[in-house]
């Protein structure tokens, strides 16, 4: 394979993680983790609390560097070209990260500024992004007045502002009621189709998985399976995803909401 073809096949993936290990002191958090998120595809990162999902997110967002292996976003290495990689990345953290006292618009224009956009363009993009998540009319309200699900949708709108090719979400539906969960999931799935974004969706809730998704099963820092949903069932010789999860991890199944 010559270099340009190799480059192309790499750039097809929104995210490529190869051979990444990480430890805190003597505690191993990730052990030789490899996974890919195709552009325009929905990939579920399934794992219990403490499986290493947050550590992986910290490495992808370059909170700290990976010391072994490589992580690249649309072909840009996170360690070697951090600016280019982070420019292509959108993140929704597990914790709420909006300023409650500021308006939706102020929150979004702040984020647009963090990506170098000027005030005029920021405002237009912010309104367009709020319309994407169905909150266009509430642009001038304070975040404090939003419900949990609405705040999540604002966070999704926020990370669309700099038009990332990869969107990663760390348990975005935790603490939401069923209606809000469904609306958050459907908005993100819609973005995959309409905007061609690659999504990595971390969760421990099995009912958030659809048959067409790709699935990465992370357990105690190791990837036990990566592939399609039918492939997972076949791999484990099980009838359902939850049975497959139990069989592969040897633990009780994750929550079935």
């Amino acid at each position: 394979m010559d270099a340009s073809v190799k480059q192309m096949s790499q750039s097809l993936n929104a995210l490529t993680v190869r051979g990444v290990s990480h430890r805190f002191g003597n505690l191993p958090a990730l052990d030789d983790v490899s996974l890919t998120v195709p552009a325009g595809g929905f990939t579920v990162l399934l794992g219990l609390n403490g499986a290493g999902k947050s550590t992986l997110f910290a490495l992808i967002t370059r909170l700290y560097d990976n010391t072994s292996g490589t992580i690249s976003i649309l072909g840009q290495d996170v360690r070697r070209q951090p600016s280019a990689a982070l420019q292509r990345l959108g993140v929704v953290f597990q914790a709420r990260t909006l300023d409650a006292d500021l308006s939706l618009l102020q929150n979004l224009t702040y984020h647009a500024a963090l990506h170098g956009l000027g005030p005029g363009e920021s405002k237009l993009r912010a309104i367009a992004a709020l319309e994407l998540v169905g909150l266009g009319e509430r642009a001038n309200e304070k975040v404090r007045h939003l419900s949990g699900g609405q705040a999540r949708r604002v966070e999704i709108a926020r990370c669309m502002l700099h038009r990332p090719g990869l969107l990663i979400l760390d348990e975005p539906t935790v603490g939401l009621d069923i209606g809000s969960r469904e609306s958050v999931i459907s908005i993100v799935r819609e973005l995959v189709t309409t905007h061609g974004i690659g999504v990595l969706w971390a969760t421990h809730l099995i009912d958030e998985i659809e048959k067409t998704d790709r699935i990465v099963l992370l357990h105690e820092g190791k990837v036990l399976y990566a592939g399609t949903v039918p492939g997972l069932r076949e791999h484990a010789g099980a009838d359902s995803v939850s049975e497959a999860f139990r069989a592969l991890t040897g633990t009780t199944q994750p929550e079935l909401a």
Partner: protein
Amino acid sequence: MSVDTAAETLKPPNAPGGRAYRPHGVLAYFNCFRGIVWREVLRFLHQRERFLSALVRPLVWLFIFAAGFRQVLGISIIPPYETYVLYETYVTPGLLGMVLLFNAMQSSLSMVYDRETGAMRTLLVSPFPRWFLLSSKLLGGVAVALLQVYTFLFIAYFWEIEPDWPALQIGVGQGEDFFGISIPPPFNGYITVLPAIVMSGLMLGALALFMSSVIRQLENFAGVMNFVIFPMFFASSALYPLWKIRESSPLLYEICWFNPFTHAVELIRFAFYGQLNVTAFLVVLGCLVFFLGAAIFAYNPSKGLIARRGGPRG
């Protein structure tokens, strides 16, 4: 550009109609800087209680503590003062320092809090270099401090605490032949104190930023007050001149002299009267470089203390 075309620009390059990514230019850096500073100011203005307490604190010291102390403490003539001054006048630069110190520590606390809630992570996933993001955040804190400082000086003016040195002249010639801008008191002092405030604010902010990366949990503000603010404030020249301290305890004098806050206060005190205290300037500058370097090192993803300790939760 309309909202509709803006919606198109939300599409990544691989989507139909998506534009290619481009590296950031100088203007993008400026936009980022302005965004960070603006957020700090907006947040501060929305926290009315914080503004009020930031203002009341030094005023209580000025009106009550200083008024009571006026009789107890005689201040001899020491530079930059050319006459005997009232204790209120002596203590004002120290109170400006206190405003900066509280503001810096409060922003440090909010950074630890930010780190746990994730707002700090939102900042750190910006594609701009980390030293730039952290420096911008520091300058945002200083912008907030400036609002407090000048509001305080405005109120203090009515208690006749003001710079009273001859007009600041920027131009050529002297006396009748002077040609240029002449800035009369009190505005001359308000202008010359500005760089000293900015530098001291940056230095204390950098110290706080470094603390925010080292201290894993600051349970509440009381801990910071007891272990950082009070020792720094009281063991300094903010409330009493150093020679006075030396008379009672040479050891305390040494401690005060090695306290960077003393030099921040002296830098402000001299600048208020249009003078430069070279020692104070060099010490504040040195501490600024050191603390900022340490903070940037601590937040560096490969070397930093965050990586070593496991970073924030969540």
